[in-house]
């Protein structure tokens, strides 16, 4: 126990270091699954340590010799704890799922080490308070993620998806780093709180907007917004399905990089970047949906629907910053509603899409097939996986009682506050059109699973083992719990929002 904020990081990184040793001990004891349970327990332990931090936020840590504006700083806020718990819940369930799903692969000691470094990178990135730490942990996430996507390197799909992902995401990170270096040239520091005070004193100029665009485009490449989305279906087809579930977390972390860099450093009341984000968001929404309906492979359909869901998130952030720039604090409630919608949508999409990728893994193990037609009627053969998939599909479709409906409603409602504004009106029209559109294809997949007669590929399917249906059922029940106690989550997210603007 060194320091409350360092403990979860130390637990994750030390267990990543000693995992190969644990793996050897497990082989010596004739119990090779020891490493799987070790990784599972260690991620769970760091989750508990993070949850234990909630009453004592904000926590801060820096090396004694270098004080914050010059040295590096770790800083835990309610928002970072919210996102860290969200990401680690997903990774914990994926680790549990991998115990059975990845059983036949070799090199599993490297697999679990990479999962641990990935989760350590996510926690470190969320706790970082300056661009230096953020970039280092971001690259740690990226490198682990590229390796995990191309983990089954004996399949050509994995290698092809991995190399495309690596190239796009690396170029994106470097463009973002170029923007960060220009920001350093303008302000002379990289600490978020000092930057916020310094940048506000500058007049909005072309150089500041250059930095903003570099950060949006750079991190946008890794969060698969539309002009840069071409890697995502290939990477999801190449990756093992459990890694595709983790990739949804990486997409959200990348989007959070943009949201935090923009909202904390460039105050949205002074800088007009709402329209850029709205354009990127609406493009991703529409093109992602149109590409998703034409797919025959369920994984590619889910990948393109991830693109359209990132569109919701970017549109929500864009609407929030556009409203606060154009109308000032008169409409600050619309600003708040849009951002609450964005962070709730992150929660719904991580759990919903992660759940769907895991169930696709369950189905494909039984039917040996990824085409949409092979899913027909599986509810009669695999009831637990199919009912969970149904909850995930209806949740993402936004069918009213489920939580996906409320997060979309919040984003749509925030655009409806000023109907006389042409930009907000067009955004509203696009959002309503797209929410109906994606509901249509989710429900279409849902009826294939539930109402159709069993296809011939699914004749021999049976329910998978407990290691594979339990995490899926846990995620489905989490989605239902979120729906029932939505008020609790809204209160938490609302409290967490102020940490983006220098509060607790």
């Amino acid at each position, binding site marked *: 126990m060194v320091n409350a904020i360092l403990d979860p990081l130390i637990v994750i990184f030390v267990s990543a270091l000693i995992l190969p040793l644990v793996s050897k001990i497990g082989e010596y004891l004739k119990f090779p699954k020891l490493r799987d349970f070790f990784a599972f327990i260690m991620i769970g332990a760091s989750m508990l340590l993070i949850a234990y931090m909630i009453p004592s936020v904000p926590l801060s840590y820096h090396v004694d010799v270098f004080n914050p504006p*010059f040295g590096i700083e770790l800083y835990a806020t309610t928002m970072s704890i919210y996102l860290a718990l969200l990401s680690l819940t997903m990774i914990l369930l994926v680790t549990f799922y991998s115990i059975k799903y990845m059983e036949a692969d070799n090199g599993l000691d490297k697999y679990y080490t990479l999962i641990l470094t990935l989760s350590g990178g996510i926690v470190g990135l969320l706790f970082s308070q300056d661009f230096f730490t953020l*970039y280092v942990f971001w690259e740690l996430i990226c490198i682990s993620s590229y390796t995990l996507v191309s983990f089954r390197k004996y399949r050509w799909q994995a*290698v092809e998806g991995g190399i495309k992902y690596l190239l796009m995401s690396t170029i994106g990170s470097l463009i973002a780093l*170029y923007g960060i*270096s220009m920001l*350093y040239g303008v302000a002379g520091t990289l600490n978020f709180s000092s930057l916020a005070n310094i940048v506000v004193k500058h007049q909005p100029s072309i150089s500041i907007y250059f930095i903003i665009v570099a950060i949006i485009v750079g991190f946008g490449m890794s969060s698969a917004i539309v002009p840069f989305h071409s890697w995502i279906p290939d990477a999801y087809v190449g990756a093992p399905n459990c890694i595709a579930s983790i990739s949804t977390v990486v997409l959200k972390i990348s989007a959070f990089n943009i949201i935090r860099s923009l909202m904390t450093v460039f105050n949205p009341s002074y800088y007009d970047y709402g329209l850029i984000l709205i354009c990127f968001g609406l493009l991703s929404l529409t093109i992602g949906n149109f590409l998703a309906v034409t797919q025959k492979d369920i994984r590619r359909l889910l990948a393109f629907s991830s693109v359209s869901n990132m569109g919701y998130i970017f549109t929500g952030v864009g609407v929030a910053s556009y409203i606060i720039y154009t109308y000032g604090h008169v409409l600050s409630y619309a600003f708040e509603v849009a951002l609450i919608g964005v962070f709730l949508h992150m929660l719904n999409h991580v759990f919903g899409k992660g759940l769907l990728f895991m169930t696709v893994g369950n189905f494909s193990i039984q039917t040996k097939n990824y085409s949409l037609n092979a899913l027909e009627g599986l509810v009669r053969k695999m009831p637990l996986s199919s009912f969970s998939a149904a909850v995930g599909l209806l949740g993402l479709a936004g069918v009213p009682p489920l939580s996906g409906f409320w997060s979309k409603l919040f984003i749509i409602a925030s655009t409806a506050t000023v109907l006389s504004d042409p930009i907000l009106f067009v955004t509203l029209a696009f959002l309503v059109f797209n929410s109906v559109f994606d509901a249509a294809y989710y429900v279409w997949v849902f009826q294939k699973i539930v109402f159709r007669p069993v296809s011939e590929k699914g004749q021999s399917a049976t329910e998978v083992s407990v290691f594979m249906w339990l995490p899926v059922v846990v995620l489905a029940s989490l989605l239902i719990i979120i729906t029932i106690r939505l008020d609790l989550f809204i209160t938490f997210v609302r409290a967490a929002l102020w940490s983006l603007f220098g509060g607790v």
Partner: protein
Amino acid sequence: MYTILLFFTFLIICLSIYCIVTKRNMIKTVLGVEILTASVNLNFIVVGARDGYVDALAQTFAIISIAIGACVAALALALIVNVYRHYGKVDWEVVRRLKW
């Protein structure tokens, strides 16, 4: 002087992006990514050495970034070896089997 140096780093960045976009050979693309890393690091050192003093943070960042760039390049080359094993060629033209 400061503006000239900034202009030159921008020029190298454009050059590397041109290399990444136009070259068909994967090894050349990785070289382009390496040039991009180097030019961004150079830009960091340029903005850190203004007004007659040198900021240590920029230099530290450049060194860490070089290490990260080496990791990414190593991973990219490892993947290219695997591409060669599957496709028999290291050309972006052949890595296009995944469609629809």
